[in-house]
């Protein structure tokens, strides 16, 4: 099992969700987050004073999948989230030791 954590543009969340569903992901967690990478913040104006807001809003999508699904899922996210401009986001893949379905107590891949 692996966890894919994808930080993407909020405007691409729907596309990423559909892409993940199409490769067989049966659930996911989405969080509104703020941060910055190479895309610097944006400018805001209040009574003529300019402020640079460092942290830009992003969406974090977390999904845990079986090992063999991961390469396709990463591909699907990249395709769905890419606009080609700085700020498209990052994808991190980490190993997951265990998964438990709370309702039934099932463990491992079947719990996903």
């Amino acid at each position, binding site marked *: 099992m692996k966890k894919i954590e994808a930080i993407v543009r909020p405007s691409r969340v729907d596309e990423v969700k559909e892409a993940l569903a199409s490769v067989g992901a049966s659930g996911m967690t989405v969080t509104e987050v703020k941060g910055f990478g190479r895309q610097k913040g944006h400018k805001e*104006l*209040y*009574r*003529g004073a*300019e402020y640079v*807001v460092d942290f830009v809003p992003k969406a974090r999508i977390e999904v845990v999948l079986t090992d063999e699904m991961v390469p396709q899922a990463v591909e699907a996210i990249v395709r769905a989230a890419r606009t080609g401009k700085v700020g498209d986001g990052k994808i991190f893949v980490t190993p997951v030791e265990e998964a438990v379905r709370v309702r039934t107590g099932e463990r491992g891949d079947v719990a996903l």
Partner: protein
Amino acid sequence: MIDKGDTAWVMVCSALVLMMTIPGLALFYGGMVRQKNVLATLLQSLAVLCVVSIQWVLFGYSLAFGPDKGLGIIGGLDWIGLRGVGPAPYAGYAATIPHTVFMLFQMMFAAITPALIAGAFAERMKFSAFLLFSLLWAVLVYDPLAHWVWSEGGFLHKLGALDFAGGTVVHLSSGTSALVCALVIGRRKGYPRTPMLPHNLPMTIMGAGLLWFGWFGFNAGSALEASGIAANAFLTTNTAAASAAMGWMLIEWKLRGKPTALGTASGAVAGLVAITPACGYVGPMAAILIGFAAGILCFGGCHLKTKFGYDDALDVVGVHGLGGTFGAIATGLFAWKAINAGGGDGLFHGNAAQLGTQAIAVVATIALSAPLTYGILKLVDATVGLRASEEDEVNGLDLSQHSENAYQSGSSMGEHRVAMVSEAKAVEPVLTSEAIAR
């Protein structure tokens, strides 16, 4: 002789001016502060209305409008507790409405003025200090100043200074005092390195709209009759606000690249401030010019604080101080007897002396407000202390001064953080597991 139309109009206008303070100004300011201070800011407007209303009834009205005690500096205590202020008109002020109605209309002006100052020391003053400051300011600054300009014995009134609806008494005095407050109380922690952004601009825009709406009561009501003069004031008020909003929007667009909602709303308020002293004395063409100039001037005025490094949190100096000064001077330029025979002619209508009189009124207002505000602040600081502690300021005034939180978390997890400490004791038995099992 009471005129029912005049009476009804001025009563409605009194209510409109009340609406400017709460919720108008409260929302205008409340949206501009950070989330942790919104309730404290709203409450300041509400509380000052309460304090000043009582003060006004007890002795404030008498000090401001009571029979003059010589010199034209202050009214006496002849009308203490509103003794002698009743249903009969007082011809010296308004011959066609009950004296009580004139007093009520003026009460709402007395209330909004200290509420305006609060924008300068927003987000850092202790609530106790705020209450004491507002009360002392109302008694020591507003009451005498209203007497100077508006009472029949006031020296600026006798001098012929034109202030139709309170440009000097309300806006210049609050703007001047705001500057003194910002300097004495000091900057908010982190200012200007940490951006302190408005937490809810829709609230601010709503407040600006209510201010504009209420301002018809403030300005057109100052005619104290339902007349052509009131209609003219209504017209110039709306025209100047619209023109100033456009002025601010366009200058910001040109210099900063984007027109903004906060800027346009601020421009409207700047125009309303500037037209206030002039509204009953100038025509609509002058109102367009006064408004447009005020919008541009106050846009610039809001940059003074960054230049000089004082923290006038919500730009009371930039909008009310500068707008009020400009309006008072502009009245001396554009006033025209053809609009209001009871007014005067300004420089552009052949009377340069009026400009001088207006300048005297400006100087006198600043000379009264600045030192007295300084003294009041020092007194409050020495007694109850002006500033919230650093920790209280960081945690926010809502929590530290009032133990309240404006916006509870919408998530279901938020509820679990809230333990009902005081009520938990009373209902404790019900919450035990045995009780639930039973």
